[in-house]
């Protein structure tokens, strides 16, 4: 019964600018990944390289969350309840990498 009286929803025409923006974001993500590859094979390994990698990763995360997940369009309280915990998470990563380095000094 329910499926018999099919509701015909009106199809809204494509907005070319919106779709172009999606593909542009995809291009940015791929270019940033390509840049990471170039750095991985041309730069000496070290703390500077790691900082560059992490910054480029955050750039990619920004585009995925803002353009693909539309987090920026959500209400501000929701936006901050997602973003603020992530800032603490970044701090925890840095703190425990330092802790790991100290364990290394104690062990060797």
């Amino acid at each position: 019964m329910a499926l018999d009286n099919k509701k015909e929803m009106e199809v809204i025409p494509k907005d070319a600018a919106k779709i172009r923006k999606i593909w542009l974001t995809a291009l940015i993500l791929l270019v940033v990944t390509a840049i990471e590859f170039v750095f991985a094979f041309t730069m000496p390994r070290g703390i500077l390289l790691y900082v560059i990698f992490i910054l480029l990763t955050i750039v990619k995360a920004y585009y995925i969350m803002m353009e693909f997940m539309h987090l920026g369009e959500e209400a501000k309280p929701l936006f901050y309840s997602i973003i603020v915990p992530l800032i603490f998470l970044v701090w925890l990563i840095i703190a425990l990498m330092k802790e790991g380095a100290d364990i290394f000094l104690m062990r060797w």
Partner: protein
Amino acid sequence: MSSTAIQVNSKRGIWGGGNEPLKASYGKLMMWFFLLSDIFTFGAFLITYGAIRMSYPAYEGAAADFVSSNEYWPIPERIFDAFPFFHGAHLPLVFVGLMTFILIMSSVTMVLAVEAGHRNDKNDVVKWLLWTLLGGITFLSCQAWEWTHFIHGTDDGTMLTYINSFNNIVTETVYGANLVVNEYGPPAFAQLFFFITGFHGFHVTIGVVLLFLAFYQAAVGIYQQRGHYEMVEKIGLYWHFVDLVWVFVFTFFYLI
């Protein structure tokens, strides 16, 4: 008792029901909170990786002369250099680059499906969901191949001295990887590889199941009947999250 009465601002009208906290629908709000808790789980894995990695000696010397040993942490570009059908060729990070490309492209087709859902365009939703589904299955297949190669190891293996699961110190040539010993580096390296990429792969598997559900329901017209494509949007959030996690796994595991 009028002094204890609570003044309700009639403008907000929160007691009447039917309003949406944070202006998001129930389903989307819960998906966001689930994703936040999942971010903490993956965060814990990556924090563990960072802490354990820094507590091991790093390999000193040129990357080209790298030799595997369980004394120091391996260089990822010397470990992940295999590609299907190119046996024995040294192709550093090419395969994982391909996997990253596949996952990012499947995220793009997913966002196109969500966009088509906003426009009530059933044909476009079905088309883009199918592409996303294909991308997810391809990614999982790539990961299956990578795990197989990682577990079986290289032709030569590595001569290692280690404590085996019977608590004996042995010196022998080790091929591939398991949770006790691996030919690439310290045991923790393979353990973390299995747990982090495995947990991510598990998420991709669930995502593929959800995508198939959305693909089927969109194709038979259930969402059209319902009057909206919100389910595609919610599954889209989950799928982008899986892509987001991969971006971090890629950096921490394969680049650093």
